[in-house]
């Protein structure tokens, strides 16, 4: 049964550290109420103006996440729905 204990412990540790690491990606951009957010299309327009080819955008937490391609590189751009300021850029 020693073997099983080692195995169970390993899995338990894996799950524990795993769930701790689960704490997701970039998610917080504003505290503003969702009803008064600026439209997502504005965020896309801003990315386009910055030279990105926009693939899609979606709400991630309290951010607009825009998928953009620039110079053959892929990026995720996080805009605040409050003032459309660029909060975070993640090269993928």
């Amino acid at each position, binding site marked *: 049964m020693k*073997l*099983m204990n080692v*195995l169970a412990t390993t899995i338990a540790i*894996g*799950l524990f*550290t*795993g*769930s701790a*690491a*689960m*704490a*997701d*990606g970039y998610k917080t951009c504003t505290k503003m109420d969702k009803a008064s957010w600026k439209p997502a299309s504005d965020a896309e327009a801003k990315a386009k103006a910055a030279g990105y080819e926009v*693939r*899609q955008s979606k709400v991630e937490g309290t951010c607009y996440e825009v*998928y*953009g*391609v620039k110079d*053959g*590189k*892929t990026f995720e751009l996080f805009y605040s729905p409050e003032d459309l300021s660029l909060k975070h850029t993640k090269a*993928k």
Partner: protein
Amino acid sequence: MREADPGSRNPPSGRRADHHANSVLVWDLPLRVWHWALAGMVLIAWVTPNVYDGLHQFAGYAVIGLLAFRLVWGFFGTRHSRFEKVGLKLRAAPTYLRNLRRGDTGRYLGLNPAGAALLVAMLALLAISTVTGAMQVTVRFFGVWWIEDSHAYASHAIIVLAGLHVLGTLVMSRLQRENLVRAMVTGWKQVPGTVRAAPRARSVEADRVPLQPQADELPQPQREQQTRGEPSVVPNIASTSAARPRTGPVGVRD
């Protein structure tokens, strides 16, 4: 479904003397390494998306490699690693699942039909998840919604199936009184019917010697033989179905 299997890399009957008596090597070493490596990689991939992209991608590529190995091993591995009976078991799966509700677990050395169905679904979903995942990091398919959605749904389904797999293994371990997790570590499994039947089988063996079967107990043809006065072998009482000791792997499916 036991048949001669010259291609098998298992020792002829797969048995060893000492503590492996009545045990048989079912899961070969490469399959076991594959299983636990896959479990580890899926676990890593599960907890790393969006946060540890590098690790997540590494796990994904590792799973692609593992899938490629499994495909090869499905044709060149030992008996229980091969895919040859998976189709048969898939067709048996609905009936098997129905019977399972009545507690009939069947006796399988390798995968039972539910396990085979899960294997097929798991391999398909892993392929979908890893391929769409790899596509997402190309400029061509980056941010394409259906790629992203397929990746997410397939990946979530994998976790659900993995949970089912763990649950099924634990329940089956209880029902069949065999530690199946351990079997996937050591590779050895009990030959079904040997564990609990052994004491009873021995008592039948002991009874057999002094027992002379009565003529009216004999099957019809043998009785005729005797009445004709021909020299006849004393029929082995154990060979009649009612008294057959469940010693060997009678009715073992694999």
